[in-house]
């Protein structure tokens, strides 16, 4: 279904010139779930308690790569209190096929093998067996009684080594999909993709200088505060209920159905409150295991990961190796750009290298481009999306090279971006032609911001700039909205609320109906209680579920107008609704408010329920951000201190500005952690050494200054209020912006993340030449 992309398109386009007056949009009401969250009453997955609940645990492979010769569960099963022990054999046979569960095509066998390893364990932490017992403690003890006979195989940890012929193979039956043709030999390269535009060689010939650079980034984790959890009950009637922490109840339902070979309708998923996801709570890990344990024991079973399990066995995001070659003219014009991106997929295919490919040069209007991408298997956990997946690594490469070009050409970093900047009509290398976008506006706002011209005093200080792009995926959302007799509306959604979307969606419904935000009672419900919804991801919920809420509101408004017409005994066409008041088109005495009308529904035909189910993909609006950062580098310790940070972003229209600002600040905080602190330390056997927050250094509020945000509003023509995706863009620029700032402060260009004290210090100690002049 194509959405609201009708007449409204042109209308909201005009809105960019004439400011529209809203009553609710753009205000900052208190969030609907606020009290429950701050008083600790909100129910998370680990809070689930059911009569007869058993507690599960998962045995994980201590080896990064090993053939499982046999598993003996006898002793564990015999331990008093143990009610079920399972291995991959309990999943039952199923013919392998390709399934698309909204996350791209995947082999069913791979999905299943990631839940419980069958032939081989492919990363340290890979689930091998599971236990349910009467207490978590007994479950832990039982796990230690399971005997697994492993044939240890050599791990493959470096993605460049993994790509070489002769590297140990993770999947002996996997052949490279090389630009559409299958490779003859099996390989760890799952896929080779290419985007091409113009004539690269021709472009490079026009260059006055060619910059060729190489970048490495480490595998990093989203670091959400709440570990994964799942409680399942497989009822005697064959119906399965799953309570869990997820970005999408329906995707859990689909994945669990495919893995367990059940019809989707026999599974009900109850998404609990979620303590962060950032892309990491889309794949299922525990849900099917809890289900199988419940099936075997006849009791509900709860599984909760500890932090080490989260690090070792969920989906961090890809480490990467990126090569960039850019040709520029003396006037700062880029004439050709080439990139090769190799991303770690982890143990099973499916890194988001393709997103990195789409984003790497996305902010620029470049005639000649070629971008190659490789999805590479390594013996590490299967990677998952992480906020703008793939784009942060990519921008770290392209945006630091651009900074070098700016310096070489003697052009201001903001100016070189403007000079080459993408606008409406620019075609990306992957073929997409931009509708109205606001990249240049972010550069203009950044230039005007006092930060851009503030003097940078003191030694060892530098200022960096970088930009970035991310999509807004659109996808499918359904809502229903029931009018209550007291004039409020109960809004039922199916997209878990991570960033305050109950409120941002409710506000859009309220705006249309002329209600206050508090008059709308939003809730996120289980998969039996609302139409299909895609995941909370891709910066889509305020946009897409918002569109559904707008449609549902219009549905209500139409029905309410009919009721008013019935009250007055006039045809419905005579009733006009605006701002929550229903008026007779010609008789000015006949008017009734939404609230008055709501009280009289029973006498006019009974309840009113609005609904909408939309696929919003065609009208989604991506966004651009431009960040400015000042740092001080301690030349004697290599420590980087962020002094000031400003994030400018085109957000389309900020429905609830506080939440949008919060998204920008959160994205910057995570981007800064990725840039300066975070990395996975694997030993040469592929075992993770820092699977805890003691050693995985995420920044906290104390590590960052106040992050200033500037919301630029260039409306998305595909949304009546102009909403764009905002949640992911802000994580894209920080590593590049920080690298550029470090260069200006200390004269060293870092091309490897993280830029931790050891790395910065070694670069400083081996640097030749003097620090450059300040930006």
């Amino acid at each position, binding site marked *: 279904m194509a959405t609201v992309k009708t007449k409204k398109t042109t209308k909201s386009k005009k809105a960019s010139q004439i400011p529209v007056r809203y009553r609710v949009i753009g205000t900052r009401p208190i969030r609907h779930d606020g009290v429950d969250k701050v008083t600790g009453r909100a129910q998370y997955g680990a809070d689930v308690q059911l009569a007869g609940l058993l507690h599960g645990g998962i045995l994980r492979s*201590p080896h990064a790569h090993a053939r499982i010769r046999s598993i003996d569960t006898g002793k564990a099963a015999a331990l008093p209190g143990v009610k079920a022990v399972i291995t991959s054999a309990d999943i039952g046979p199923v013919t392998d096929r390709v399934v698309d569960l909204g996350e791209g095509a995947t082999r069913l066998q791979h999905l299943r093998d990631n839940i419980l390893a069958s032939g081989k364990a492919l990363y*340290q932490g890979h689930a091998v067996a599971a236990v349910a017992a009467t207490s978590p*403690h007994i479950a*832990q*003890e039982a796990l*230690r009684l399971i005997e697994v006979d492993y044939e240890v195989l050599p791990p493959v940890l470096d993605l460049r080594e993994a790509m070489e012929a002769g590297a140990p193979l993770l999947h002996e039956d996997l052949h490279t999909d090389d630009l559409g043709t299958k490779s003859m030999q099996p390989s760890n390269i799952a896929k080779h993709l290419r985007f091409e535009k113009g004539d690269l060689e021709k472009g490079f010939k026009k260059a006055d200088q060619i910059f060729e650079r190489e970048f490495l980034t480490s595998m990093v984790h989203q670091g959400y505060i709440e570990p994964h959890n799942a409680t399942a009950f497989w009822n005697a009637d064959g119906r399965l209920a799953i309570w869990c922490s997820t970005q999408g109840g329906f995707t859990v339902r689909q994945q669990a159905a495919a893995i367990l070979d059940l019809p989707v309708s026999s599974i009900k998923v109850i998404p609990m409150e979620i303590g962060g996801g950032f892309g990491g709570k889309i794949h299922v890990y525990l849900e099917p295991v809890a289900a199988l344990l419940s099936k075997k024991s006849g009791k509900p079973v709860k599984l909760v990961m*500890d932090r*080490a399990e989260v690090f070792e066995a969920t989906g961090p995001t890809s480490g990467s190796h990126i090569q960039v070659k850019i040709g520029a003219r003396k006037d700062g014009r880029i004439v050709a750009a080439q990139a090769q991106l190799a991303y770690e997929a982890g143990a099973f295919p499916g890194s988001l290298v393709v997103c990195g490919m789409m984003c790497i040069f996305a902010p620029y209007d470049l005639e000649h481009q070629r971008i190659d991408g490789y999805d590479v298997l390594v013996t590490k956990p299967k990677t998952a999306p992480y906020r703008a997946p793939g784009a942060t690594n990519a921008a770290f490469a392209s945006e630091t090279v651009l900074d070098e070009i700016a310096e070489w050409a003697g052009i201001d970093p903001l100016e070189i971006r403007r000079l080459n900047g993408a606008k409406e009509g620019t075609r990306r290398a992957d073929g997409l032609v931009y509708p109205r976008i606001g990249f240049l506006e972010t550069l203009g706002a950044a230039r005007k911001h006092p930060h851009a011209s503030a003097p940078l005093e003191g030694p060892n200080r530098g200022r960096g700039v970088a930009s970035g792009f991310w999509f807004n995926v659109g996808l499918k959302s359904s809502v229903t909205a029931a009018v209550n007799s007291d004039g409020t509306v109960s809004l039922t959604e199916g997209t878990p609320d991570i960033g305050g979307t109950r409120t941002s969606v409710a506000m859009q419904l309220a705006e249309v109906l002329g209600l206050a935000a508090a008059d709308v009672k939003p809730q996120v419900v289980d998969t039996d209680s609302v139409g299909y919804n895609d995941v909370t991801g891709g910066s889509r919920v305020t946009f897409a579920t918002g569109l559904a809420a707008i449609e549902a509101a219009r549905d209500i408004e139409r029905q309410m107008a009919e009721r008013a017409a019935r009250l007055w005994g006039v045809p419905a066409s005579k009733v006009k609704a605006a701002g929550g008041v229903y008026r007779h088109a010609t008789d000015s005495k006949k008017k009734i408010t939404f609230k008055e009308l709501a009280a009289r529904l029973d006498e006019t035909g009974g309840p009113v329920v609005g609904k909408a189910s939309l696929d919003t993909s065609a009208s989604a609006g991506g966004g651009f951000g431009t960040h400015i950062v000042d740092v001080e580098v*301690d030349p*004697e*310790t*290599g*420590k980087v*201190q962020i002094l000031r940070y400003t994030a400018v972003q085109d957000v389309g229209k900020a429905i609830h500005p506080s939440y949008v600002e919060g998204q920008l600040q959160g994205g910057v905080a995570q981007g800064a952690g990725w840039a300066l*602190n975070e990395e996975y*330390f*694997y*030993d*040469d056997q592929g*075992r993770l*050494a*820092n*699977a805890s927050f*003691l*050693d995985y*250094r995420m*920044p*906290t*509020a*104390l*590590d960052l200054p106040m992050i200033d945000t500037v919301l630029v509003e260039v409306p998305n023509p595909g949304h009546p209020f102009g909403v764009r995706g905002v949640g992911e863009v802000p994580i894209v620029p920080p590593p590049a912006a920080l690298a550029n700032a470090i260069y200006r402060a200390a004269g060293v260009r870092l091309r490897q993340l993280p830029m*931790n*004290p*050891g*790395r910065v*210090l*070694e670069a400083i*100690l081996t640097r030749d030449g003097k620090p450059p002049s300040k930006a």
Partner: protein
Amino acid sequence: MKNFAYINAASEKAAIESMSDKALALAGGTNLLNLLKEYVLAPEALVNIKGIAGLNAIESFEGGLKIGANVTLSELLDHAEVRGRYPALHQALYDIGTPQIRNMSTLGGNLCARPHCWYYRYEYFDCKKRGGQGCAAIAGDNEFHAIFATDGPCVMIHPSSAGPALVVYGAKVKIAGPGGSRDAGIEEFFTLPAAAVARENVLKPNELVTHVLLPPPNGKSATYEVRHKESHDWPLAMASVALTMAGETAQEARICLGAVAPVPWRAAAAEAALKGKVVNETTAGEAAQKAAEGAKPLSGNKYKVQLVRTAVKRAILAAATGRRV
């Protein structure tokens, strides 16, 4: 975590009688519980020592302080004399963990805490301390490991941030065991892996640290810690310095490094270099160069040699000027 018996010791004697290599003392638990959860330690019993009378006071003693082992790091930080007379200790404690961790952690626990080495803390790595054959850190990710005394058999860094400060003040550790009580000099208390790889100090399994004795300070002191994050984090390198000053000249200098060796690492060459010198940027820098002499960094932690120099120089200047640098 393996099941264990819980013994609430009411007295030093009761604790000592219960303690063995299978029954470990439990103080704040901030270190011990993590190790139990990871099955690094799986004792049969825990002996809670927090209820022992007399181990939770800070008293005046021979012009200095007598600090009970169960005194928490927060209590030490709040103590006027610690803040006023022992700035090197105060500054060292100030940077440990978070307020919650400092509220729970005891001084005894801090001195006896087990290594923070990640190869020790996860049971699937080879670790001589846990009875293994080799040391995973030597070929592994060792950016946070020792740069001194790296000849083996273990390249851990001692986890106590309080240790170096206590060394420069010449503290003593009061130890109670089956045979009675004895005092050990703080430097004798910590032992190198070469002496006994499984342990980090002289304590026998049935011995308890009961007090730390701090002599009166005679001069100026400071600690400087280099760490990665601003918020709670472990030091990458640190230095505690105590100077006996005559005007601007350092008559005596005691300098001890932290987070760079399996024990708090006394920098004797740096002390000698500073002795008798007017303390300024140049002399502090020269002493700092000396402090790094003899370092044998591992494959991944050469950067720590420079961090030692930085920490020593800044600690010397901070001690001399009374200002943080």
